[in-house]
């Protein structure tokens, strides 16, 4: 995981906060893959990694399965999901963090 910090952040950043672990590493990779049009910002704070992008992010079960090389239930992400910015939507095939309002 590499840490990067933009000079300014918009008011519309949303995404997961992950604590370390196998699933978190895979999730960071999957998020990059599942949001090709977004500039994903990853900030490492030791016990948690803040992953965000303008308008939010999505992570797909299929991508996690490819990366982990095994069946994956979306709920497993919860083990490493210590929080998130924005709002959350959960589905068995994806998890999504978003904001309704564009400020």
């Amino acid at each position: 995981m590499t840490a990067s910090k933009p000079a300014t952040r918009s008011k519309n950043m949303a995404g997961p906060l992950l604590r370390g672990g196998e699933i978190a590493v895979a999730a960071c990779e999957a998020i990059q893959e599942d949001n090709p049009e977004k500039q994903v910002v990853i900030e490492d704070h030791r016990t948690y990694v803040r992953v965000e992008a303008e308008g939010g992010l999505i992570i797909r079960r299929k991508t996690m399965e490819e990366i982990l090389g095994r069946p994956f239930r979306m709920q497993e992400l919860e083990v490493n999901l210590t929080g998130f910015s924005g709002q959350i939507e959960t589905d068995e095939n994806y998890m999504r963090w978003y904001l309704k309002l564009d400020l």
Partner: protein
Amino acid sequence: MALLDRSEWYDVARATNWTPRYVTETDLFPPDLSDPFGLPMTAWEAFDEPYKVSYREYVKVQREKDSNAYSVKAALSRSKYYDSADEGYLSLLKLHYGAVSLTEYQACQAQGRMSRFSKAPGMRNTATFGMMDEMRHTQLQLFFPHELLARDRQFDWAHEAAHTKNWAVLGGRHTMDDIMMTRDAITTSIMLSFAFETGLTNLQMVGLASDSEAMGDFTFSNMITSIQSDEARHAQLGTPSIEILIKNGKKAEAQKALDISFWRVWRLFAILTGIPMDYYIPLKNRHMSFKEFMHEWVIKQFARQLSDIGLEKPWYWDLFLDDIENHHHCQQGGIWSWRPTVWWNPPGAVGPKERAWLEQKYPGWNDSYGRYWDVITGNLLDGHEEKTHPNCIPVICNMCQIPVSNRPGPKWKARVYQLDYQGKRFNFCTPVCKWIFEQEPERYKDFETIVDRMFSGVIDPPTLPQVLIYMGIGVVSNGGRDGYDYSWVDGHRKQAAE
């Protein structure tokens, strides 16, 4: 056999409302416990929890979380980490366990009440998982400090604090009773799930975890971030509640519940998280200042979430921003000065290097809080330890139960906000605590602060030794002393010699 996807059966399985036939709806869901806002049943049936989980998934995931937390503890307990741990850091742990362990159990009861009394099937469902989560948090945080009892009796406060009348406990209990033990299901979902869990638990369970990881205490940081992964899920039951209230013309009511709870919990967390972060963690291990952390998690993240679900920032936002600069610095001074009354050993820890850091993070610190510590440091350098113990009784806020205090220095800002109600004078630390009281005086008026109890005959005789016994000091464990036995003064001694 292939399992159905969760989304194919979830809505049907969750539709658990029914039409009562041999009791009235009001008997089944008394408004005081359920919904005092009077929304129809159908309005609550629209409740759609954003973070969904099935029972099968829940058990699998929680089992994994628990086995991880306990196995990390087991693996690391051989390392004897705590035998040589920093005293300031151990104080952080004692404060944490005393304040948090059984509060988790209160949260368990609050979740239990939401799972029984909410008219929203989705809330009942989420709160049922929440109740089991909070039971897990209680168990973890009673079990983990238990092994430390043998080396230090002050860890017994993990279990005992809630059963004492220590002044710090009274403050915590007054707040928690207010926001999660004595409210209806809907208000609890705003006060506990949204204001407290979504807004502020991150400070302690994630922010402080970064510092404890830097201290090498992986057992603790791993355990509390594991807990926070439960919070991230069950805290979400507040959002749909608020959205439904707004949609049904009850925005003002939702806003008021948020405003009350957010302030109350903030006043506690500034002490619980703010002081350890900026004073107890050794300088070299500090990650961010408390203020920086507040900016990342609350001022940016939580405030953004607030506007997204249709609420406003609390009316006292400017006072809150000012409190971030002051409240925990005041209370560090107060708690350190009254250290014999607490169950941990608060380090003064304001040597020259620490002061430089504080000045950098909180410009103006030296000229305000620094002056308070100048006097203390001077007394210690002169060998007058006895002069560092105050001989007066503080004024306690009739709402937050915390000593009234504010920024010292050239412009002394401390003042008390008073209200006369039914022939009694009430003192408040801020206009916000006073405003909360005014919203519902009958709820709060009979509670006696620790100082009231000295004058009303509850603590008899009202002498220092008796007060300490009343607060559990010398009963559960010894009270506090300076965490570093004043060694932080050495730097100043060297400076004075140069």
